[in-house]
């Protein structure tokens, strides 16, 4: 179900209400918003929840560094990456390591829309694009 303009605006308002005083997502506030939706049952509830979920997912993506790695990664390296990203984006970034053997070697870090690729798979993909374009 596609959200109309009103639903989109409402979902954005709910998302803003879900942010705490520090500008980060607050689980209590999100729970309160969900409880309110369940209680009041607004029109186009499904589309509203889907849009709200998209906003929350984007916010979660912005505040975490998804670290995909092919081989083993030490906790110290993960902490180092998190510290570097926190400094770069000027906001607290929490690390989320995830094994990804498809990368063959190296790392790939995603923070929000930004993708930092230092993997063998990425390099090969780049090579393929350059030679076939």
């Amino acid at each position, binding site marked *: 179900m596609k959200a109309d303009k009103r639903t989109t605006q409402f979902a954005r308002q709910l998302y803003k209400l879900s942010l705490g005083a520090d500008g980060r997502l607050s689980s209590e506030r999100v729970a309160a918003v969900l409880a309110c939706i369940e209680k009041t049952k607004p029109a186009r509830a499904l589309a509203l929840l889907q849009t709200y979920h*998209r906003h929350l997912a984007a916010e979660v993506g912005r505040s975490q560094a998804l670290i995909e790695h092919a081989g083993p990664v030490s906790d110290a390296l993960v902490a180092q990456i998190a510290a570097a990203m926190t400094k770069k984006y000027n906001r607290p970034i929490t690390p989320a390591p995830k094994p990804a053997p498809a990368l063959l070697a190296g790392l790939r870090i995603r923070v929000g829309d930004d993708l930092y690729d230092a993997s063998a798979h990425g390099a090969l993909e780049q090579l393929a694009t350059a030679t*076939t374009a």
Partner: protein
Amino acid sequence: MTVLEQVEAQIAQLSNRATKRNTGTIRSLADGVANIEGLSDVMYNEMVSFPGNAIGIALNLAQDEVGCIILGDIATLKEGDEVQTTGKLLSVPVGKALLGRVVDALGRPVDGKGPIDSKEACPVERIAPGIIARKSVSQPVFTGITAIDSMIPIGRGQRELIIGDRGTGKTTIAIDTIINQAKINKVGLATGDPKFRPIYSIYVAVGQKNSNIVRTIATLETAGALEYTIIVAAPAADNPANQYIAPFAGAAMGEWFMENDMDALIIYDDLSKHAVAYRQISLILKRPSGREAYPGDVFYLHSRLLERAARLDGKGSLTALPIVETLAGDISAYIPTNIISITDGQIFLETDLFNQGTRPAVSVGLSVSRVGSAAQIKATKQVGGKLKGELAQFRELAAFAQFGSDLDERTRKQLDRGARIVELFKQPASAPIPIEQQCVTLWAMQKGFYDALEIKNIIPAAKSLREFFATRKDPILAEIRAKSALDKDLESKIQAAVDEWKLTQPKA
């Protein structure tokens, strides 16, 4: 470079450092337009890379999503696919290597003649030259069509609209102009004159049937004009994004000639279909619609395109001949009035005239060139300066003459002369007449050489006169070409030659 060397060069280029990309996800996809979630760093008009080598242009930067038009094959794309920014503006190949080729809206060859060896590329969207860089229009572009060259002259760097209903010969005028440029180029380059400036042509086909484009290519090839022409094809079967971008791609190719001290002519065939393609994109992008459902910036769309045609001080020029199709001769519709106000004049083609057999069906009253006689050679001014006024008077008198049969001598003479001028201006397609031959035929008209002839015999007589000059009096034509003006000596030579030609004509 061997295949192995190419791959090795690419490997060498790859650095070990991490690459940063700004990515997004396709949320919806329809009619060549994708709505993308993410792409937080994307710039307006930036190229966006889609899977499968398709590229898009970011046109709508909204709060939650980015609206992109997709150029190329969209069949393999689906919702959820990842896209990424490139940090570049859309560019097309430019240069002389494109001459004689048929390319798509992205400058890729579609004529099966192999890859194009182009060394340079230019951005499709560019700011038009400013006031200081420009120079006033004063050099002519000869169309080879007597009615236009004598009454509605076009200059290098001018924007002259060709407007009329469907099937009135708009494209024919454009093609004839391209053919005439090729003929002039061949003659001029053969003389080896260092001052000669050839005009290269770019024909942009927007939203046309493929069969029509093939016919145009065949006409140009037969006339030997394709070698001086680039054809940018965005046919009706292409997605609206390609149709939208094609005129801008053509303008980028034309600008290259202008910037590199050469002259170019660009035909946009046609901008009504271009506006329709842009309307389609805008409606899918959910931009607010205005009059006739066109978006609010449809004027800006065409003004920024046509403003790129200019004559640059110390450099070359780009002349634009946009074509617009009207419905039932209504030039006061939205898109025609917009483009009329942007251009430096218009050639209006009338359906009634066309059906009466007056071809090219140029309406003298509604056609104008705002550059005026500044873009005419002196010889044409001397022989055809009064023609427009005479023809306009003729049309007026002809309308009144229908109400009564008693006409005074003066009116009858004016009507008779007008009918002869109309007849003299009739010209078949793909047969442009060199300007010096036009001067001779108009001179003969001015001096009353056709007055004794029956009106139906004027066209054969004019043709015979031109052939006589081309085959037996070429030095006179060469002198007109060189002097670009008729002095007393030259006029007496023309007089003698026309008298000689008269003797060859059968007695009535």
